């Protein structure tokens, strides 16, 4: 939350930074043997330097994928995520009952053979609602994270590449937004705008864009001084070309890590907003909203209406964090 949310930024990027630094050191070793005046030679070696960078820690490679497939934490996380994706896509077909219309006789029934997870206060089957409830959150959270990553990458590239005033001004705004937990920022904007899936995606995407731009900026600053960038400048490439064709491929590692980590936060945020009544709106089955509607019956002993959606959220966020953690470990090392 964190969002922390709290913000985890000091941890992941610093790790990414270390790896980039080590990549840079090896680069400097190469640069020592070059005559800075010889433009042609510089360009030629810069190309070979680009090759070195490509094989370094910053990028995604096939052997990394192989490493991931051997990591048990990744496989467990991926299996759980896959299950919820299946639920999101085929939910209505898998669910044993209609998740929206309830039975007129079976209110607040404890788990039984007919209703594995029991029924809620409106007589709806909790298992069916948990299965179908995977859908909206698995649409909103990934789209918001994608938007945030695209935006954050662009802002970060601009900040890191142009530095100067653009950089320090936008940095201050990011600081101000960071002074609030993500959930609070999203809450602050959802309240006046009203909640709907597109608004949730845009607001969370914008906030994440600011957060992700920080990491991308740091990574770009590291690349900025490398010879391949200087070579591209000497070749008279346009700024856009240098940013998106030269630098971007070399910072995909940290961006991928940011995407997976933020995806966990997006789910955290959407679920929390739904719980507070400002996220995914009823009657759409949603875990956070279902908990919000049923937790007042906890004291009466109807625990199943709240516990099962809670376990669903927990399993999904933990799965994504296991995936994020193993991707980070592979990309950084």
């Amino acid at each position, binding site marked *: 939350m964190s969002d922390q949310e709290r913000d985890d930024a000091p941890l992941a990027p610093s790790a990414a930074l270390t790896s980039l630094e080590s990549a840079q050191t090896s680069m400097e070793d190469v640069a020592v043997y070059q005559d800075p005046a010889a433009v042609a030679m510089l360009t030629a070696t810069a190309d070979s330097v680009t090759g070195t960078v490509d094989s370094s820690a910053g990028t995604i490679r096939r052997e990394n994928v192989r490493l991931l497939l051997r990591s048990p934490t990744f496989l467990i996380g991926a299996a759980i995520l896959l299950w919820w994706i299946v639920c999101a896509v085929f939910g209505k077909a898998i669910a044993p009952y209609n998740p929206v219309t309830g039975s007129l006789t079976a209110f607040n029934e404890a788990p039984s053979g007919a209703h594995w997870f029991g029924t809620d206060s409106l007589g709806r089957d909790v298992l069916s609602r948990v299965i179908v409830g995977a859908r909206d959150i698995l649409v909103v959270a990934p789209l918001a994270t994608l938007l945030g990553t695209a935006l954050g990458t662009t802002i970060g590239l601009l900040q890191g590449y142009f530095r100067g005033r653009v950089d320090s001004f936008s940095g201050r705004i990011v600081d101000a937004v960071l002074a609030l937990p993500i959930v609070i920022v999203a809450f602050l*904007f959802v309240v*006046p705008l009203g909640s709907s899936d597109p608004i949730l995606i845009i607001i969370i995407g914008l906030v994440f864009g600011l957060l992700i731009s920080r990491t991308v900026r740091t990574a770009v600053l590291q690349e900025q001084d490398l010879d391949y960038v200087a070579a591209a400048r000497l070749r008279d490439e346009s700024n856009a070309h240098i940013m998106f064709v030269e630098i971007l491929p070399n910072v995909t590692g940290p961006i991928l890590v940011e995407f997976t980590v933020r995806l966990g936060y997006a789910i955290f945020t959407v679920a929390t907003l739904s*719980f507070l009544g400002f996220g995914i709106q009823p009657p759409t089955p949603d875990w956070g909203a279902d908990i919000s509607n049923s937790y007042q019956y906890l004291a009466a002993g109807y625990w199943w209406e709240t516990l099962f959606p*809670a376990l669903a*959220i927990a399993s999904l966020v933990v799965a994504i964090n296991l995936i994020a953690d193993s991707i980070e470990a592979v990309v950084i090392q």
Partner: protein
Amino acid sequence: MAQYILKRLGLALLTLVLLSLIIFFAGSVLPSNPGRLILGPFASQQAVVALNHHLGVDRPLITQYWSWVTGVVHGNLGTSSQYNLPVSSLLLPALGRSLKLALVAFVIVVPVSILGGVLAALYRGRFVDRSISITGLSLTSVPEFVSGVVLIVIFAIGLKWFPVSATPPPGTSPLGQLHYLILPAIPLVFVLFGYIARMARAGTLEALDSDYVRTAVLKGLPNRVVIWRHVLRNSLLPTITVIATQTGYLIGGLVVVETLFNYPGLGRLIVTAANNKDFKMLEAGVLVIGIVYLVATLIADILYTVLNPRIRYEQAE
């Protein structure tokens, strides 16, 4: 060093001004017609216009922002539209109750997570390390209301060790009040544990790999002395910064926990304000959260400077 602190203070003030603009934008610019939002679609246009005039939202935006900011500086946070009372008269007692809950969480989480992080570092790569890291990562990522629900089901309903609500009946002794606050504090502890433990682990690992620790080990100091005197002192420095930044987020997490446990603190006040479109209250509540965060990071910065001799000497030169 005074110069450094002044610079940090200036930056914090600048951030605060930007933050107030963002909050004002969300709370006063985006809601185009607060009177209509409060009164609903069936109220007469006349009543809406009258309420908007009463709330002062028909004035130019710059006037509104200026009167809000000067009011805040003078301790006047505006009038709550739902209670028709000064916002500060409701906000301050609620903030006090929130800080009480946050303090309980804090007192639990700091020693537990530092211990966890240091243990993980000492058993690097082994089972203890893996399980502490994975547990921390998982707990951190689970929203507070989710772990809160699981805790209520187990410890309040199943085992009946703790009450379901966080609000004690009036006249409860301080120790009795504490009993009501422990269960709501745990979800906050869960979320913070991962961050602080991870930082403590990283700091300890760095210290363990350092030359001075190798020297200490090679000169034959017992392990306990090496860890207490050489490792911990250096490893906990970065942890302090993380603890302080997380304090701000702790206050944010209260929004959820207070709603779940029905505790009348700042967080629940903000949620109630949001439900009733009480924008002045919402703005003030969020601003207070931001201020708490900025003050906490400022204190962390200063503490770090005071405790870290390297920075201290650099400044002196």
